[in-house]
């Protein structure tokens, strides 16, 4: 496999920020059925958005925390040309809820809380809990990889300029 990791990491770093911006736009504006291909799952913006904007003096970082994070202040930053660096999301599926933060730079997850699986009462329960937790992490990665694939397929398609125009309208509304 010929992949120059350090080169591609920096050269295509914009993909992560664009993905998070697109995801935010899609969650707020579009029919979730189209986004998730499943009527029983739901995704919403959580309690934190981090944006970053390059200025003449360096980098301006804006962190917005709290319920319904970012709807106003975030839009102001986007209008000024900021890009989304981190996005906290809530994912619901069949009465279960995951909350997590995705970082655009490396698509890593942090503050990930899965649905509750109870308490380990004895050592022999550990393997079962590990299997359950891994299943829950895997379910989340299934979602994220699916969304990212949807974004990348769109990003390399001829339809992308229309999406950029829609996001532009949303930001400047």
């Amino acid at each position, binding site marked *: 496999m010929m992949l120059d990791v350090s080169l591609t990491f920096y050269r295509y770093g914009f993909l992560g920020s664009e993905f998070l911006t697109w995801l935010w736009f899609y969650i707020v504006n579009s029919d979730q059925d189209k986004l998730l291909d499943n009527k029983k799952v739901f995704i919403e913006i959580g309690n934190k958005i981090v944006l970053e904007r390059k200025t003449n003096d360096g980098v301006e970082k804006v962190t917005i925390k709290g319920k319904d994070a970012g709807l106003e202040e975030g839009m102001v930053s986007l209008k000024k040309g900021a890009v989304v660096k981190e996005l906290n999301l809530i994912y619901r599926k069949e009465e279960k809820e995951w909350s997590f933060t995705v970082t655009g*730079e490396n698509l890593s997850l942090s503050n990930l809380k899965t649905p509750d699986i109870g308490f380990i009462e004895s050592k022999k329960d550990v393997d079962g809990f590990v299997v359950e937790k*891994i299943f829950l992490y895997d379910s989340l990665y299934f979602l994220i990889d699916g969304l990212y694939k949807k974004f990348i397929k769109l990003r390399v398609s001829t339809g992308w300029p229309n999406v*950029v125009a829609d996001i532009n309208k949303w930001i400047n509304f």
Partner: protein
Amino acid sequence: MGLLSSSVSINRYYVEGKIKEPVLDTVKKGLEKLTFRERDDDPSNKNAGWTSFNNHFNPNFSGSSFVINELFVFSLRIDKKSVSPKIIKKNFSVETAKRLEESGRGYLTANEKKEVKEQVTDALFLMVPAVPNVYDVVWNYEKSILWFFSNNKSANEELEILFSASFNQSLIKIFPYSEADILLGLTDKERDLLSLLSPSKFVE
């Protein structure tokens, strides 16, 4: 941070290539090759190695103890010692004064100063207990994917070094481009288009 914690961080890696058959045996040997070993008499400030997921302070990779549901589950332990620079500076001054008095000279050469600093630092690090940090690892061999339960930069670097030294395999970090290129099953045409992308402007 453990995979069973109520709140976790995860970094993903792609494991390049396949390891020598029988896989279970090779993984066991790799883990045993760099198992964490206590080094109380070592003045270095860092000590790292593999440990058991279910017994962080007494590693044992016998049988298939590191296999859960066809996944390899183990942990990386990194012990670190730290001494305040102010304490090093104080002990260095005391030791330097002692040397000057013993030698009857009014100065120490650059090499002597370096030697004193090393001795002082080593002596202090020997006295200080190391702080253990344990990070869980889940390796899905069939999918060539590894989850590392920390976003800490130095812990991730230690993982990459240790993994390569143990299993002769490289870990490729999953980030936006590598995920698209490796994991999403894009067509050759899509991968070509991906490599030609440049940033979009969402505002005029």
